[in-house]
């Protein structure tokens, strides 16, 4: 299946737990997604739902204490062979030849994600030196070229500056340049604009989108803002408590959300462009504790469309409700389930 659809990265039933003295954090609970080659997908969900941990898992970056307890992360390499990165030794040679080289990542906090005591050139050239076979002169040229590519003015001068001399938006551009330095195939952008001003957000997103198209990257855009994904990705996964509750092509999902959680998320986007700003509806209640997973449907404690007792007892199956549109909710349990849809 991986090859037929040109899926470059596929995560199946991923469970990640943090074992701590006070209990076990169930950070990811059965996350599943597919990234088709050259396409862009979005992973959307509230803070703490496991987006970052899922992304970290794919390139073996889990923080200390975190363990993948179940599932597969299938990466299709350049030569077509498939490797399960969940099985690779932590920080070993194999994962390091994928991380940074094939799969690059940019992070939420451009302020702190770069070293304050090394110059931009130092940090940028290091990536090139590590993965590409170039001489020092070529490395310098490529570094400047990369900074120009992400729209940093006077790149040949700024390259020798320190990151604290740049604004937040410029720092995030440096991060993007660095991530793209080694001609990666997949770019994971983890809330790349959350920490930035609104006007800067749009610029940085545009840089990412343009480069994704120009370099035919496969992009995973992680955000808690459904508004951001609209112009950025082809396909969206909505994540809640460490699993995907709904997924579909972006225009369909935004226009016709099915899961009560997705509807809630959409309602909570502030509509500034309208004649008057609508009241922002937030989803009632709070996200359940990741130490104790709720029984039944994970969203039942906050859901306003409960079907009945079944919501508290049984976890809903993932069902197909239209072309490539999937939802896990008892309201739609009558529809064709996942197995049938794919096998047929």
């Amino acid at each position: 299946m991986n090859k037929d659809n040109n899926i470059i990265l596929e995560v199946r039933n991923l469970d990640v737990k943090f074992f701590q003295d006070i209990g076990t954090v169930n950070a990811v609970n059965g996350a599943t997604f597919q990234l088709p080659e050259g396409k862009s997908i979005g992973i959307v969900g509230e803070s703490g739902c496991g987006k970052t941990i899922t992304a970290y898992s794919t390139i073996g970056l889990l923080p200390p204490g975190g363990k993948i307890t179940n599932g597969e992360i299938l990466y299709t390499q350049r030569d077509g062979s498939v490797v399960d990165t969940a099985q690779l030794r932590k920080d070993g040679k194999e994962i390091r030849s994928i991380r940074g080289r094939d799969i690059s990542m940019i992070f939420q906090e451009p302020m702190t994600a770069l070293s304050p005591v090394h110059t931009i050139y130092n940090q940028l050239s290091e990536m090139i030196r590590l993965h590409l076979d170039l001489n020092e002169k070529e490395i310098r040229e490529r570094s400047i070229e990369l900074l120009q590519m992400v729209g940093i003015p006077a790149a040949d001068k700024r390259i020798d500056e320190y990151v604290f001399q740049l604004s937040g938006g410029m720092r995030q551009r440096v991060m993007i340049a660095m991530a793209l330095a080694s001609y990666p195939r997949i770019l994971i952008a983890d809330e790349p604009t959350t920490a930035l001003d609104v006007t800067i957000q749009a610029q940085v997103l545009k840089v990412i989108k343009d480069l994704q198209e120009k370099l035919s990257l496969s992009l995973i855009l992680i955000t808690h803002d459904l508004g951001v994904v609209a112009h950025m990705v082809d396909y969206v996964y909505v994540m809640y408590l460490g699993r995907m509750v709904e997924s579909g092509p972006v225009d369909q999902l935004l226009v016709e959300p099915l899961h009560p959680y997705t509807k809630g998320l959409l309602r909570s986007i502030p509509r500034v462009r309208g004649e008057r700003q609508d009241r922002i509806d937030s989803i009632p209640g709070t996200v359940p504790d990741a130490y104790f997973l709720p029984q039944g449907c994970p969203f039942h404690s906050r859901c306003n469309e409960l079907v009945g007792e079944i919501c508290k007892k049984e976890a809903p199956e993932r069902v197909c409700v239209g072309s490539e549109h999937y939802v896990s909710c008892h309201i739609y349990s009558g529809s064709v389930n996942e197995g049938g849809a794919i096998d047929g």
Partner: protein
Amino acid sequence: MLSYIIKRLIYMVFTIAFISVVSFIVIQLPPGDYLTTMISQMEAQGDVVSAELEAALRVRYGLDQPMHKQYFTWVTRILTRLDFGYSFAYNQPVRNLLGDRLLMTMAVSASAMLFAWIVAFPIGIISAVKQYSLFDYFSTFLGFLGMATPSFLLALVLLWVCYQVFGTNASGLFSQEFINAPWSMARVGDMLSRIWLPMIVGGFQSAAGLIRTLRANMLDELRKPYVTTAKAKGLANAFLIIKYPVRIAINPFLSSVAWMFPQLISGMSITGIVLNLPTLGPLLLNSLQNQDMYLAGSVVLILSVLTVTGTLVSDLLLAWVDPRIRYQ
């Protein structure tokens, strides 16, 4: 940057002048002076000191002058001729007493600090990287032990062990035959073969403190996002840990080198006495007990010059290793 340094240098001069005045006064605060001590000693031996002789001696030593005059004479001679005055107790110019001792003090303190760093850096870093490992627990234990053990006790224990095991007396910086010998390669060699004891004794406590702080700093830095970024590049762990978090965690230590130094010198006074070291510490203690004012004043002055220059060098080093400070 240059104007900053100049400003700092000017402050420095004032600070040192102030310290020298205060120390000169403090040294003379107790009732009596060196002559009183000397006369009471002579009388204890049965000699009778006439009032004329006392007055004559007082004039000879300049003790009849008012205090501010004594101070200015002393300071002027230091500045113009590097003449630090005369030590009554040792019956020698202070400069003769200080020369070798200053050198020796530097050698002992520098080696103690080097020892502390060489021991503390790898241990502190590894115990942070391998937090809660057996190694970490062991180094934590060692750290507390080091901080809780007084240096003079450690000195006594090591002396005793040396005597029991090797049958030699390891105190002092030189063997018997070299104590008063002129400087030669052989004398330097002799000193190097003996310096390990004060080096360990002096460095142990600093090492213990360094391990604790370095471990804490490293734990902070290891959690910072820039470490994740470096990992995401695909760099090898050992390399990236040294290049990023270690580099940032040791900043404060690189800069502390300069002010740690004078601290070590004064901190090692008691150890110096226990180990019978020809360093400044024991000399200072002696001179204070004897009210040997020019000697005491000179040692305090030298220590304060070292401290104040040390602080300046620290700040410059910090600016050098940390661009965030340099570009402010």
